[in-house]
C-alpha cells in the first residue's frame, strides 16, 4: 500500500499526526501532483515514440469494478472480471488495436483460413503453453468453444457454430450453419477464452473461477475479494519478451473521489472511470486523462409494447423533444459524441445518417398527428445511485413536459432496474452509461440483438418488431462479401434511426487518469485494456 507524497516528504508515522493539524488551502491546488503537465490524448494511447520499453516495475490500477468470477465458461462477464480474464487467458484471435478498424489479430491461432462459402473456418494453433506448463492443444480449444457455444451458456456470440472438429492436435475446424462474418470477432471475446480441459474437469467450475489457469500474459498471484487482485508474469507465455511489467496490482476503489485522490497522491498509476465532470479539473492539475471511444450506447430505452410508444409518430416526437446536445454538454462534459444512429459506433458506422435536431415545434406537430395529441404520462426507471442517469432523467423530464408528456422518474436500486428491464416491467428506462455495450467491435451483436432476436428476448426487451430492419440485419450478419455487408448495415442504421425504437443520446467514452511514467496503455473499443505491452519508465 504505497503512500508516496508527490513533494517527496514520504510517509511519517501517523502517531505524529495528532499535533499541529492546520488545514490550509484545502480547495486550492496546493496538492499538485509531480507528474509533468500534459494534455488529454483524445483517442490516442500513451505510446511515446522512439523510447525503448523498460522491463520491470509494478503497475497499480485503482478500479471501480471488483472481479467476481474468473471462469470464462460460466461467464457473467461483468467488467470487473473481464479485465482480469483478458490478462490471464488467450482467445484464438484478439482485437489488439484501439481504433475502430477492428482487424482481428492472431492470438492462440497463428493463422486461419475461411472457406469460399464462408461456412468453414480452419484455425492453426501456435505452440503455446498454459501457465502450469501444459501445452495448449486442439482438445482444449474444442472443450472451451463447445461449452461457450452451448445454447444455454450466457454468452450467445458463438451461436453460428454447428460443429467443432480437431483433425490434429494443432488444428481446429469450425463448421457454421450459415456464413457469419462476425464470428471471427466473437471468438476474440473473453467468454471464448481457451481453458485447460483436464484441469477444469478435475477441479470443477467453482474452484476454477477462483484459481484460473490460462495461457495469457499474466497469472493470478493473489486475490483478496473486494480489495485487491495481483497479477504476475506468465513464465510460459508464448510471446517471448512480454509482458514488460513484473507485477500488476488491481485495487478495488469504488468511490469516484477516492480514486481521484489516489491518482493525485501518486498512490496508484492509473485510475479508471473518471467521472465526466472531473476530467477537466484533473487535466487542469496536470494529470493526463485518456478519453477514448467505446462501444457503449446511452439511450432512453423504450418499451414499445407500452401503448403510446407503439406509435411511430409518438416516438419520433419524443426524439425531437430530447435536448441531446444539452445533455452531452451538461451530463457528459462535452466528451461524448451525440449518437446519429441507435446502435454503437463500430466498424460499420454510417456517418451519413442525421441525428434528430432539438425541435419542440416539430415534436408538437408530430404528437398532434398521433392518437395522443395532448400528450400522456410515462414512467422512467433509473438507477438512483448513478449521477449521469439522474441528471439525464431530470433534463428529459423538464423537456418532454413542454410537449405535454409527463415523466414520472422512479428511482430504484440497481438490481431492481435490471430485473424490471429484463422482465419487460417498465415503460422507459435508462441504464448506466457503460452498461449497454457491444462485446464485439463490429455491428453484428447489436444488429442481431436489437432487430433479429424477438423470439429469444423480445429484441433486448424492447418489444420492437420491424420486418424490414430484421431483413437488413440478417443480410448484414450473413453477407458473403464486405460490400454487401456494409451496404446492409448502412441501410439498417438509416431505417432504424428513422423508426426511433429507442431515443439515442450519446456514445459515452472511456476515461482513465494515467500517470506520466506509464507507456503503452490504452483501452480497446470494447472495454478492456490489454497490459502485456505496458511499461513504466522511471
Amino acid at each position, binding site marked *: 500500500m504505497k503512500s508516496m507524497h508527490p513533494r517527496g516528504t514520504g510517509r511519517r508515522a501517523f502517531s505524529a499526526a495528532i499535533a499541529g493539524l492546520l488545514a490550509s488551502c484545502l480547495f486550492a491546488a496546493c496538492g499538485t501532483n509531480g507528474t509533468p503537465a500534459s494534455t488529454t490524448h483524445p483517442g490516442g494511447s500513451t505510446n511515446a515514440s522512439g523510447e525503448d520499453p523498460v522491463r520491470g516495475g509494478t503497475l497499480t490500477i485503482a478500479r471501480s469494478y471488483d472481479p467476481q468470477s474468473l471462469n470464462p465458461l460460466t461467464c457473467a462477464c461483468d467488467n470487473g472480471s473481464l479485465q482480469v480474464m483478458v490478462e490471464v487467458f488467450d482467445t484464438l484471435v484478439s482485437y489488439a488495436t484501439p481504433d475502430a478498424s477492428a482487424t482481428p489479430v492472431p492470438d492462440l491461432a497463428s493463422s486461419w483460413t475461411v472457406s469460399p462459402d464462408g461456412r468453414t473456418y480452419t484455425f492453426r494453433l501456435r505452440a503455446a503453453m498454459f501457465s502450469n506448463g501444459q501445452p495448449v492443444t486442439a482438445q482444449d480449444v474444442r472443450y472451451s468453444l463447445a461449452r461457450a457455444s452451448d445454447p444455454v451458456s450466457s454468452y450467445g456470440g458463438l451461436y453460428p457454430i454447428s460443429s467443432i472438429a480437431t483433425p490434429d492436435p494443432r488444428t481446429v475446424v469450425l463448421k457454421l450453419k450459415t456464413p457469419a462474418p462476425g464470428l471471427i470477432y466473437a471468438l476474440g471475446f473473453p467468454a471464448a477464452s481457451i481453458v485447460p480441459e483436464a484441469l477444469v474437469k478435475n477441479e470443477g467450475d467453482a474452484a476454477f473461477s477462483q484459481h484460473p489457469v490460462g495461457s495469457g500474459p499474466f497469472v493470478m498471484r493473489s486475490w483478496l475479494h473486494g480489495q485487491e487482485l495481483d497479477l504476475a508474469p506468465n513464465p510460459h507465455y508464448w510471446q517471448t519478451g512480454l509482458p514488460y511489467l513484473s507485477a500488476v496490482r488491481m485495487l478495488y476503489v469504488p468511490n469516484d*473521489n477516492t480514486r481521484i485522490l489516489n491518482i493525485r497522491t501518486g498512490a496508484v498509476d492509473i485510475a479508471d472511470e473518471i467521472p465526466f465532470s472531473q476530467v477537466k479539473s484533473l487535466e487542469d492539475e496536470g494529470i493526463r486523462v485518456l478519453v477514448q471511444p467505446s462501444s457503449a450506447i446511452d439511450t432512453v430505452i423504450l418499451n414499445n409494447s407500452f401503448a403510446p410508444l407503439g406509435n411511430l409518430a409518438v416516438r419520433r416526437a419524443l426524439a425531437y423533444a430530447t435536448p441531446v446536445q444539452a445533455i452531452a454538454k451538461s451530463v457528459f462534459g462535452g466528451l461524448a459524441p451525440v449518437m446519429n444512429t441507435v446502435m454503437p459506433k463500430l466498424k460499420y458506422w454510417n456517418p451519413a445518417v442525421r441525428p434528430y435536431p432539438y425541435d419542440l415545434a416539430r415534436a408538437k406537430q408530430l404528437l398532434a398527428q398521433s392518437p395522443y395529441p395532448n400528450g400522456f404520462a410515462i414512467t422512467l426507471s433509473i438507477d438512483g*445511485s448513478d449521477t449521469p442517469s439522474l441528471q439525464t432523467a*431530470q433534463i428529459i423530464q423538464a423537456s418532454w413536459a413542454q410537449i405535454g408528456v409527463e415523466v414520472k*422518474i422512479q*428511482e430504484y*436500486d440497481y438490481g431492481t432496474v435490471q430485473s424490471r428491464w429484463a422482465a419487460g416491467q417498465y415503460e422507459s428506462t435508462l441504464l448506466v452509461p457503460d452498461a449497454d455495450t457491444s462485446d464485439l467491435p463490429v455491428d453484428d451483436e447489436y444488429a442481431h440483438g436489437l432487430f433479429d432476436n424477438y423470439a429469444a428476448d423480445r429484441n433486448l426487451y424492447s418489444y420492437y418488431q420491424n420486418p424490414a430492419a430484421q431483413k437488413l440485419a440478417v443480410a448484414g450478419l450473413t453477407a458473403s462479401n464486405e460490400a454487401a455487408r456494409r451496404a446492409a448495415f448502412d441501410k439498417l442504421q438509416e431505417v432504424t434511426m428513422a423508426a426511433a425504437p429507442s431515443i439515442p443520446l450519446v456514445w459515452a467514452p472511456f476515461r482513465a487518469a494515467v500517470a506520466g511514467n506509464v507507456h503503452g496503455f490504452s483501452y480497446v473499443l470494447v472495454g478492456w485494456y490489454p497490459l502485456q505491452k505496458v511499461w513504466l519508465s522511471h
Partner: protein
Amino acid sequence: MSAFSSSYDTGRRSRSRSLTLRLSRSASAGERSIAVGLALLALVLLASAVGHFALPSPTALDLTSTLAAPSAHHLFGTDDLGRDVLSRTLAATWLDLGVAFGATYAGVLIGVLLGATAGYAGGWPERLIMRLTDLVIAFPFIVLVIAIIAVIGPGVEGVAIGLVAAGWAFYARFARAEMLSLREREFMQAARTLGLSHRRVILRHALPNIIRPSLTYSVSDMVLNILYIASLSYLGLGVQPPTPEWGAIISGGQQYLLSAWWISTLPGVVVVVVGVGLVLIGDGLADRFRVRRELVR
C-alpha cells in the same frame, strides 16, 4: 438515609438551599438553551418561507448556468442542472424536518413503552421484547427499506416507515436498561405497597426518570435520521427526483466535492444549523425536566 440513594425522583423535598439555587440557575440555563434552539429553527423555517417567494424555483433547470459558484445572484451557487442550491435547500426544510420528526418520535413512543414494560415485568414479557429488539437491530436495514419500497412504491414514505420499524428498538433497550436499575428503588416498591396499579407506577413514577436518556438520544437520532435519509439517497432510495430533499441534494453533490464543493457543503451547513438547534432544544428540555422533578415537593 441510604448511602446509595441517587438523584432519582423520590418525591422528597431537596434539603439544601445551595442545591435549590444551583438547580434554579440550571433551569434558566435550560430555558436559554431551548430559546436559542428554537430561534435557530425559526430562522431556517422563516428563511424557507421567504425563499419560497423571493428565490428562483427549486426545480427549474437552467442548463446554461450549471455549477456556478456562489455569487450575489445565487447565494449558494447552482447545481449540476443549473438549479439554485439555496432555493432547493430551503424548499426541503419542511419535508426533512417533518419526516425526521415523525419517524423519530413514533419510534420513541413505541420503544419506550415497550422497553419500560419489559424492564418492569421481567420474565417472559421481558425475554420476548428484548429478543424482538435483537431481531430488529440485527436486521439489515437496506433489505427492509427495499422490501417496503417494493410494497408501497418508491419515495420517502418507505424510508420513513423503515426508520420507525428499525428505530424503536434502540429506545426499548435504553428504557429497559434504566428500568432494571429503577425497579429496585424503594419508592417504586413503596408505590406498589400503597396499592397503585402497575400502569400507574410505570407511567407516573418510572417513566419520567427512564425517559431522560431516550429523550437525550432522540434529538441526536433526529439528526441521524436526516443523515440516514441522505445515505439512502446515496444508494438511490428515497425521495424521487426532482423533489428537493437535503440528503438527495448533499449526496447528489458528492461527485463535485472536489470542484463545485458548494453543492454538498452549503446545504450541509444548513443541516448542521438545524442539528444544533434541535440538540439545544433537546438538552434544554432535558435540563428543565430534571430540574422540575428535583424541585417537586
